[in-house]
Structures are given as C-alpha cells and as structure tokens.
C-alpha cells in the first residue's frame, strides 16, 4: 500500500521542522498514540491504539527518524507489533518554504500490514491509512496555528 499528498502549513520552515521533531507534538497529533518515549538516537517507542475495521488493538511500535536533512527532509520508519498483527511503514517528508510564514509539506508513504489486520482489515486499509495520515497533518496544522495565536 502506498500513497502521497501535500499540505500547506502556517509557519516558517525551521519552526515546522522543529515541531515535527518534537515527540510531545507527535504524541498529541498521532491518532491513538498514548505515549512516546525516546529510547535511542532519534528512536522512539510508542504505544499506539488503532482500530481498523473490526480489528481493534494495541501496537507496541518503534519509530525511527532517518535521513535527516534539517530543515528540508526526513524519513520516518515505523514498526509496530501487537495483538492484531503488525504494521511496517515508511514515510518520506519534504518541506519547502513558500514564503517567510508558510511552508509546503509533501509526503509519500508505503505500508505493509500482517496477521489479523491484513486478514480482516485489508478492504479498509487504504481508507484507514488516508484517514490516519490526513488527521495527523490536520492536527499539526492546528498545533502550528495555535502556537501562532499564543505568540
């Protein structure tokens, strides 16, 4: 399963990049993310709780940030395992400044699932992935806008 998209975010590129690297922001913006802790260099352990079709459950996930070229580019590698099966995903994120206060974010991802989640959830998977990713960036956008209002 693969996909891509882009979104325009309020904020200068360095600020957006900084936010995307902040585990607290990520915890807040990833749907079903209960907690996230740093376990190594740019490596996090996260508790995710996601329901795909009839398959609801917890995933014990490792998220690694790779290929970092601040503030333009990075890659997220996710491996999650749990009762419903496993998820292997990779996302590549590129940032380009539109002007001093606006940044264009483009992303591509590929994901594979296995176990129960593949056996029962396959039909819904594309839709769920889109939903999860769309929701993530919407929340990032909101977070950035909230930051601006406070400032």
């Amino acid at each position, binding site marked *: 399963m693969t996909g891509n998209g882009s979104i325009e975010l309020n904020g200068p590129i360095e600020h957006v990049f900084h936010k995307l690297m902040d585990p607290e922001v990520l915890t807040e913006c990833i749907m079903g993310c209960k907690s996230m802790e740093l376990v190594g260099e740019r490596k996090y352990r996260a508790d995710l709780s996601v329901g795909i079709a009839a398959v609801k459950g917890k995933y014990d996930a490792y998220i690694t940030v790779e290929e970092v070229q601040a503030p333009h580019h990075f890659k997220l590698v996710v491996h999650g395992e749990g009762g419903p099966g*496993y998820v292997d995903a990779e996302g590549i994120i590129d940032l380009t400044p539109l002007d001093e206060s606006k940044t264009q974010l483009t992303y591509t991802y590929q994901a594979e699932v296995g*176990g129960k989640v*593949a*056996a029962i959830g396959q039909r819904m998977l594309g839709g769920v992935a889109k939903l999860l990713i769309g929701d993530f960036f919407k929340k990032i956008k909101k977070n950035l806008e909230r930051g601006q209002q406070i400032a």
Partner: protein
Amino acid sequence: MDCKHIGKPMKRVEDIRLTSGRGTFIDDMNPFPNIHQAAILRSPYPHARIKEIRTEKAERMPGVKAVITGQDIAALTNPFPVGVTAPVKYYSLAVDKVRFVGEPVAVVIAKNRYLAEDALEAIEVVYEQLPAVVDIEKALEPDAPVLHEAVGSNIANHRHFHYGNVDEAFRQADLVVKHTFFYPKYSATPVETYGVIAHYDPSEQQYTIWSNFHGPFTLQSVMAAALRTPSNRLRIMIPKDVGGSYGIKSGVYPYMVLMAVASRIAGVPVKWIEDRQEHLAASSSGTDRVTWIEAAVKRDGTVTGLKMKMVDNVGGYVRAPEPACLYRTHSNTTGPYRIRHLQMETIAVMTNKSPTGLIRGYGGQQLYFPLERLMHMIAQKLGMDPADVIRKNLIRAEEFPYTTPSGGVYDSGDYRKAFDMLLDIVNYDEFRQKQKQARAEGKYLGMGLACIVEPSGSNMGYITIALTPEERAKSLPKSGCAEGATVSIDPMGGITVRISTTPTGQGHETVAAQIVGEVLGVDPRTVKVVAEMDTLTSPWSVASGSYSSRFAAIGSSAVYQAAHKVRQKLLHIAQELLQVPLDQLVLEHGRIAVKDAPGREISLKRLIGSTHWNPDVLPPGMEPGIHETAFYTIPAAMPPDENDQVNGSVTYGFVADAVTVEVDIETGEVKILDYTTVHDAGKLLNPLIVDGQILGGLVHGLGGAMYEELAYDRNGQFLSGSFMDYLCPTAPEIPPITIKHLETPSPLTPLGAKGLGEGNTMSAPAVIANAVEDALSGLGVTIDTLPLSPNRIWTLIQDAKQKMEITA
C-alpha cells in the same frame, strides 16, 4: 430385492432434534469437571524464525494455569507421521520457525476464554522475518526461499507415471490440444468450527479427547504416534452431532494432540473452540493446483492419450493424509472416457500458505477442471459440438467393469444413457438455436457440459502410490476399506445399532435404521442408532470415518451384514423351536412364520427374549444374547501393484451436468440461469437424503466456481479472514436445480449402492466455466482459473478485446 424401507424417502430421524435446538455438539459438552479454556497465539508472519518467546508476564496474569510453547511440544511429542519420504517435521505448535500466517505459536490455558485471550497479548515473541513464497511455480524455482531446510527444496513428493504407450498416441495424433490451468485454494466453511475437549489422567497415563473429528481413523495412529502413547491410551470420542465438515474437520487432529498435551501440562481438562477467523486462516482447505495438460486427438474427436503434470500446493507442511489430494483420483484420471494412454507427473510443493487436507470432492475438482475444460477446447479446435466430443469418448455400457489405464476398476454404469438423458432434459439442440437468437439481440447466453466419474469408498492403499514401488516394498502393503457396525437387541426386544461412520450431517442414523428395519422386518423408527464414536468401545478400523462418500458403499454394507448375522441367529432359533427347515421360514411383520402354514409362527419378541431369559431353548452351541458385529471390506480394494496400477476406490458413480448462464459483458457478471445434473450412484438408499446431499455438494462446487478463494498476497499475507472477505454462496445465489437419477446397481456392494454427494463439487467448477466460455465464444476469452468473479470476467473480456484490436 423387494424393499419395504431401503430406497424409500424416509424422513431423517436426526431432524427433530436438530430443528428444535436439541442437538449435542462439542461446544455443548462438559464431560469433565473443572474444564479450563484454551486460546492460541498465532503467527502474523508467513515465514520467520522464532528467536525468543517471553511468557512470564502472561503466566502471572489472573486465572492463567499454563502457557505452552513449541519447546514444550517438541519435548513431549513426536512430529506427526506422514506418507512421504521428505523429512518434514510437523508439530502441533511451531518449533523454531513459523511457516504460514496463523500457525499456532503458543497456547494459554486459563479459567475462561476471556482471561486466556487477554493473556495472549502479554506473550512477547521475537521473530526474524524470512522471505516467503506462496506461488506454486515460484516455489519450484531453484532460488526460491526454502521452508524446510532439511528437505533442501520445497518439494514434498514427486512421482512420474506411464500407462500405455503415450508417445505413440501423440505421434499418431491429428491434433494436440494443450493448456495450463490454475485451480484456487478454498475451503468448505462448516457452520460449526473445530472444537476439542482433552483430558489427561496421569494415574492411568490416559488421554481422553472429545472432538468433532470424523476420521479417517488412520489418523488415530498418527495422533498416538505424536503423543508417544499406546493407542489404547488415546481414547477419542466424537459427539452425537457434528455441525458439518465436508472433509475440513479431519484437519482438527493437530489441535487434538495440542490440547491433549496442554491438559497434561496444565493438569486440568482443557477445552478449545476455534473462532471463525482462526478457522479461515489456519484450519484446513483444498489445495491450489497448477495443471499442464495435453491431449492427443484424432480428427473425429477421439482422445487417445493424455499427458498431465500437476503440482499441488499443500501449504507450510505436508500433513497427513496429504499428499493424498494428488492421488485420490489417480485411478480415475481419465474420467469417464476410454483414453488408454496416460502419462502423469505429480508434485506436492510446500509454500507459506495454510496446510491442506480433506475437502468434499478431494482432488476431483482439481482434476476435472482442466480435463473437462480441455474437452471443451478440443471441440472448439475441431469445430465440433462439445456434446459430440464427450459422447464419442464416453466408455460404452458393454465395457463395464472397465479398467482404466491407471488401474481403476469402474464397477458399473451406462454413461451414454445418462448423458443422453441430460441432453434430453435440457433440450440441448433447442438451446443452441435460442443461443444464436439471443446473441443477435446482444445477449450472451452459454451452455456448459461436463461428465465426471465420482469415486467413493477409498481404498486405504491408494495413498501409498505416493511412494515408488521400491519404497512401498520396504513396508507392509496397505489395502481394503474396512468398516464395522454392531447390531444388538436387549432383553425387552429393543434394537440398537452402533456405527463408526461419524456422520457430520449426512443422515447415517436414518439410513442405518432403514437397513436394519428392512433386514429384521421391523419399523425403522423403532430402531435406535448410536452414531457417537468411541475408539475404546465402537466397532471401528483404520478406514472408519466420514469421508470419500463411503457410507453408502461401505458403512451401510457393514450395517447390512451385522443385521444379517442377527437375522440368521433369529432364524436358527426359530428353526429349532418350530422344527422346520430354514428355507421354509419367513421373517416379516415382527415375527417368523412357516411358509404356507397359517398360525405356525413365533414373535421376534419371544425369540429375542429367549436368548436372554431362557437360553435353555437355544440350539446346541449357540451363544446367549444378541450382539452381532460385522466388519466389511471389498476385495477390489487391493494394494497398488509394481506397475503403479491401483484401484483407488471401490465404487464409481457417474455425473453429467449441463448449466446455462448469461454473461453481462459490460460488467462481467455471470448469472447462472439453471443447473441440471444427472447422477448414477447405483441403487439409492434414501432418495430424500440423496437429493439433499447432491444439492449441498453442488452448492459447494458453485461456490468454488463463482466466489470462494483463500487469498494471499505475494508476500504471504492472508487476505480472506472473515466472511466479508471470503465469499460463500447463500440462498439467493442458487439457480433452479434439476436432479435426475439413473440407477445402475454396483455389483460389488450387497445393496447395489455407491457413494454420492461429492460429485457436483467436482463437476460444478468445470461445467460453469465451460458455460461462461461458451457464452463468450467468439470474443477470444479463455477461462483457465477461478473464481469467476465479475472483476476477472470483465478483465478477460477487456484483454481479449485489446488483443483483437491489435491483431486487426
């Protein structure tokens, strides 16, 4: 034989309890106190090494009695024996490696299922993923990932067979027609899933297992070997009612061993009821198969020779009774046709899919899909009508008993008569006119034909054809199809029949009562049939069980013979009491009377009573009581000979099908307009049950043709884990069905009956595919795989259109 009960449409005695919710199924049972529940952790990976399993957290959870892993199983059991020489180690839990998605990795035994399932989530398994292979042809490539290192390749079994002079037949042919076909993997989805209740008593070192297992009871020895226990310390009991199987439930046996060991480790009786997701992912299924088939054909449509290479995908482990799917139809490979020259190459390959096993039709659907599609293609190539090609090649009535090149002995039949009946019922010639008119109006109608031989009553020796004659010579030969039955009569005259045919819904209780009623001259409704099976007390043998449509041919014959022993005993007592020769006595209406001597008679009740209450009057030397057991086999079930000829089944029926369809070429949707099937299963024992069985088998075959597939992606992930992903036909999908019978009695069985109920499972996929291709004739569409989903048909139509445009 002039029959009062046999052959009559008696209503099933089982139905009152089943339709009023009073059946006794495995999940209803609590045969031991303090039963604990099991839940199974399964692999999400198709192929991976197990680096570590951490169970401490799960073991500390409330209500958890034990957590069992592959290491426990490897310590307490042996790998299951299997009839191939490839060194494949198959245990009831994965040891060191997992080889398919859904493979059991650990078991939790807890107070209830909720606690057990919760504890599963606390088990941590560290896997190292390995490359997976699911495609048959890819699995045979030299650089394919290898599932079993000790085997060295993915080939579990490989044989070559030559019968007649195939090269000569192909040299003399006017035409060679060949094609490659892919048959998909699918199941039978019984409504009731697997269930096991196991108890280990350390004081007697006795395993007692209740399960909805239905044989073959050759597997009792497989289980005893795995458990390292003497066979009489493994008591297997089957509940009165089993909620359908169609072969699939024979695959419950690894779980019977698993739960037996779990009970031993946990020290409590253990119950496990499989859920639907587990069932679809990891129970059992038919094989997927690739067949390369070639026919040597004469200009007049006569087929003289066949070359076939067939490769069965048996999944992650070759599991007994596999690779039997490759060989169950070995004796009838040439179907109903007088083809004398046959060459075969058979391969069982292991891939990262779930293991396979018995399924209604077992091997027949995989055989007849290519064979009957090829007959259709031959007609096309020659510009002949398919009906003429089939008719030309059918074995003639005077050729029976007919010996096939591979050693099958077809006991009886009149194939041309049955086929002509079919063409007559469907107004074949008229349909061809209607089809032309419809095409002119832009409607795509088609008719498919298929004729098949339906084997029943498996010979225990057929599976040994998987070995070469030299390998076979190293062990004792196997033959026969033995089945037992007991008829007993209590001191008050109550008749009881004990059978070991483990019915899973086929109405054996009813037919056994009909037979005993007939033989003993009593109302069948007064006869009590006990279908519960118990390996410590039932009359059984290796071939016992419910498979290969063996009740009508074998099981019912054992009942008939046991009833006859009782009849003979009663007649001998009457002879003594009435002082007349045996041939002067008639047994009817609950009494034995002297022919042409009104009033000189004695009631059965009195005769039976005397055997219990007054043995003094019995003829000298006769034992008291009435308790007769008969074991029945058919001598035609001989071991394979040194030329690899084998008669794999004892009786062979015939099925001729015609199906009409309409295809919407805009959407690819296939509508089945009607389905006509003519059967010859010898003498019918109960026409009501016969038609019910035929309908069930037909719907299963229709499911395979149109909807069902256990789908995997190319990485080995399983994609059809629920009934939203795995489609089964339901009532609205069933077309009008016409069933007609021809009854050519079998000369081999005492009642002339043959097995039935699997035939259309074998024929429906082929005949429906033939009908669809016929509807699309002229469009350049070739159907060589299933299911015929709108998506597949639409794509075929589009591809054919494009091809035509390019060539134009």
